[in-house]
């Protein structure tokens, strides 16, 4: 079916105001949170019902035109950058809560429901949805499922995959499937988990069954300042060795602190080289004792200053500073790359020293924000895109950091996914046989590779982003803003 016929078919699925084809209307859909890449889709279908999505996928399949689902477009790996001349199926209006059973602690939601809306749903029943990516006030559950999103509480609570019990989806060839169920336990292979993190390569989730968890009786949030990043990293190891299991352990370096301070004034200790946030959670009596242990451990760790959140407002301010860090860095630099890599926690100090050395070698500033309990680094590489070659130099550094993570036995991504950004590194982390298995799984669900084509598994030319043009740019599929 030629493209124009596909547009005509789509026009029969949704009314004209929900089928965008004019350049002006498409502009808003050209990029995502990884702003270096941009491409223009042929059309955007704004779905309002499950059937809209199924019909649109079937039409694309019949026409052999690539398509991609999009939520709020907050992907940091380019996962929601449209395929040039493909179809975007926008899911924001599929934002209904289909079922909520507080007794069983289960909610069935549509993919366009915003992450925090699930927590709001549970709140009157003392429940919340644990995965908390920094973008949780806007990002959608559908996107969280596609990229197995994380957040600040993963060490104790896990990632999105650990909170998804069931999924109903339409596969790329139009087949509707039901995976998992609504129990914490299940019989048979856990195929719902396999759908999570598939980055849209299998199809589109239509209904997602989530588990909610009881909100802890109390939180105790402690802020400790250190004279070096190394000292803050060592403190994390001490906390783990002490047998405590905090809900979150986060570190920010001086540049990230400066940025957060400028953006949202969280009143972090001034002049700290590094800041450690440790949050305990649980039953009142238990946490009271944990808190004493924690304060002793931090006292022995050489902290230059320690503060304890006095109340919920204080706690919210501490977290606001941390969660705003990515965007806040925009105040320090016109452009920046958010990197996402994982190292074994015990090698955190080594990794940070290496990143500092790389930063010096390239003369590029790097701000560090990371989920220390998970060994999940988020170096923010600052550059000025107006300077000739600056973006390329920043990408060289970004690639060196990812190779460092692989070399230390870690991962190329902790929570942002592979997307467009890291396809060539997937091959450095996994063997040919592993990748081949991934590719065969993709082809089993999507024989003509229409769903989110070009992401995650697509062949990346050797060199990739360290050699200027992105392979898809070279191929004329996408272009840079």
């Amino acid at each position, binding site marked *: 079916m030629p493209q124009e016929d596909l547009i005509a078919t789509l026009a029969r699925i949704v009314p004209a105001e929900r089928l965008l084809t004019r350049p002006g209307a498409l502009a808003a859909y050209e990029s995502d949170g990884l702003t270096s890449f941009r491409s223009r889709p042929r059309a955007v279908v704004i779905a309002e019902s499950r059937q809209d999505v199924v019909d649109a996928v079937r039409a694309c399949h019949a026409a052999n035109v690539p398509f991609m689902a999009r939520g709020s477009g907050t992907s940091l790996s380019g996962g929601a950058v449209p395929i040039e001349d493909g179809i975007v199926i926008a899911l924001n209006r599929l934002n209904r809560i289909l079922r909520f059973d507080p007794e069983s602690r289960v909610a069935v939601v549509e993919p366009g429901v915003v992450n925090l809306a699930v927590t709001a749903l549970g709140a009157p029943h003392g429940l919340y949805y644990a995965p908390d990516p920094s973008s949780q006030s806007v990002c959608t559950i559908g996107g969280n499922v596609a990229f197995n999103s994380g957040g600040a509480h993963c060490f104790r609570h896990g990632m999105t995959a*650990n909170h998804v019990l069931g999924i109903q989806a339409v596969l790329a060839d139009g087949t509707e499937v039901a995976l998992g169920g609504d129990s914490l336990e299940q019989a048979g292979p856990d195929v719902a988990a396999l759908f999570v993190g598939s980055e849209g390569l299998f199809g589109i989730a239509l209904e997602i069954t989530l588990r909610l968890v009881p909100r802890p009786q109390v939180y105790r949030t402690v802020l400790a300042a250190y004279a070096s990043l190394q000292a803050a990293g060592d403190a994390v190891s001490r906390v783990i060795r002490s047998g405590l299991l905090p809900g979150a352990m986060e570190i920010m370096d001086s540049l990230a602190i400066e940025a957060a301070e400028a953006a949202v004034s969280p009143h972090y200790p001034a002049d700290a080289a590094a800041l450690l946030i440790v949050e305990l959670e649980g039953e009142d*009596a238990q946490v009271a004792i944990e808190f004493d242990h924690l304060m002793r451990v931090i006292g022995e760790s050489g902290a230059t200053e320690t503060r304890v959140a006095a109340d919920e407002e204080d706690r919210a301010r501490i977290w606001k500073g941390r969660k705003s860090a990515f965007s806040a860095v925009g105040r320090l630099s016109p452009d920046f790359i958010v990197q996402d890599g994982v190292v074994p926690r015990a090698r955190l100090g080594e990794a940070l020293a290496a990143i500092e050395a790389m930063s010096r070698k390239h003369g590029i500033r790097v701000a560090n924000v990371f989920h220390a309990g998970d060994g999940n680094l988020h170096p923010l590489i600052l550059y000025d895109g107006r300077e000739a070659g600056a973006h390329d130099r920043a990408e060289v550094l970004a690639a060196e950091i990812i190779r460092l993570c692989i070399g230390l036995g870690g991962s190329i991504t902790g929570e942002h996914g592979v997307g467009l950004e890291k396809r060539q590194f997937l091959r450095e*982390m996994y063997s040919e046989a592993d990748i081949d298995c991934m590719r065969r799984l993709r082809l089993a669900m999507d024989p003509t590779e229409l769903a989110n084509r070009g992401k995650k598994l697509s062949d990346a030319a050797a060199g990739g982003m360290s050699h200027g043009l992105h392979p898809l740019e070279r191929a004329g599929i996408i272009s840079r803003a």
Partner: protein
Amino acid sequence: MTISPASIEELRQAVAAHPRVSLRGGGTKTGLSSPVSPSPVAQGFSPALIDLSRLSGIVAHTPEECTFTALAGTRIDEIERVLAPHGQYLPFDPPLSAAGATIGGTVAAGLNGSCRYRYGGIRDFLIGARIVDGRGGLIASGGKVVKNAAGFLLHQAMVGSAGRLGVLAELTFKVFPRAESRATVRVDAGDLAGTLRVLSAMQAARFELEAADIEAPATVWLRLGGFAAAMPSRLDGVQRAAGAPSNRLEGEADAEVWRAVREFAWMPPGAALVRVPLTVGRLAGLDTVLERAGVRRRYAVGGNVAFIAWTESIDRLSATLETVGLTGQVLRGPAGRSLIGAVRPGEFERRVRMVMDPDNRFGGDA
């Protein structure tokens, strides 16, 4: 014919060399480890049983990382012995460890214990695996770090796959620090409705329980873990909130209760052991039909799973489960019927199986 590979390489060769294989770990879940092929002899080839108990050993344990890697045939009790000196444990509370259960068999069965209620099940702690596929190829999924969004979560799909997608060769887990002390509250809730009210009260008070089991018809078992110094006031709180007569079990008495639960010591000899995932909302409906059948049963993980001791024909239980729309997994019982009741193996699963085992060596298409 039984083959006992002692290395991953030998395992690969064993899979490749036989047109139909079935798998066995510690042999504690006979309903899953017995050969499933429908008369393979009649189809002209002899089935091979791969016994994984020699593919054993802890490959790495990094206490600082809270991770370990073990070969699939490693016994659970051996892993627990290695973790314990570092104050760590397996939070998914794998059952049948004293009986000789292996880590691979536990993952393949997807079998969690009661104390998984606190932090999660196998799926929440398995971070990587090496898998031998249906053509003897070795595939790695996941990794060795606790957080990882690269690749597909194929290793998590192996949880509960019962050997139909591939052979687990090596597994990597994250683990947690073990609580300093534990204690149990036993509540006499009067009747089943009373037990559900107790669970509801626990949730409303936001207690963080290690386990919340119902022993039908009317007893609730609640376990707490944490610092010993906090335990008395927490136990007081739980007993107060329970709103029904209760008593405490501490020290060895607490340990003994849960050791017995882990080994299914309450099962009458000769009964089939059937596991049924469910939700609290569907518990009462299931219990009504089980009560009528007069069988012993226990609900674990806050009402998310039933364990049933079934002494009659499995077909009858299958029909019963079908009527209430639930699926059962036969852990111990007659061979060849690992899933009963409302079983709807979907198209997605079929496609995954075609990728992992195109020649149907593992009998998933049987």
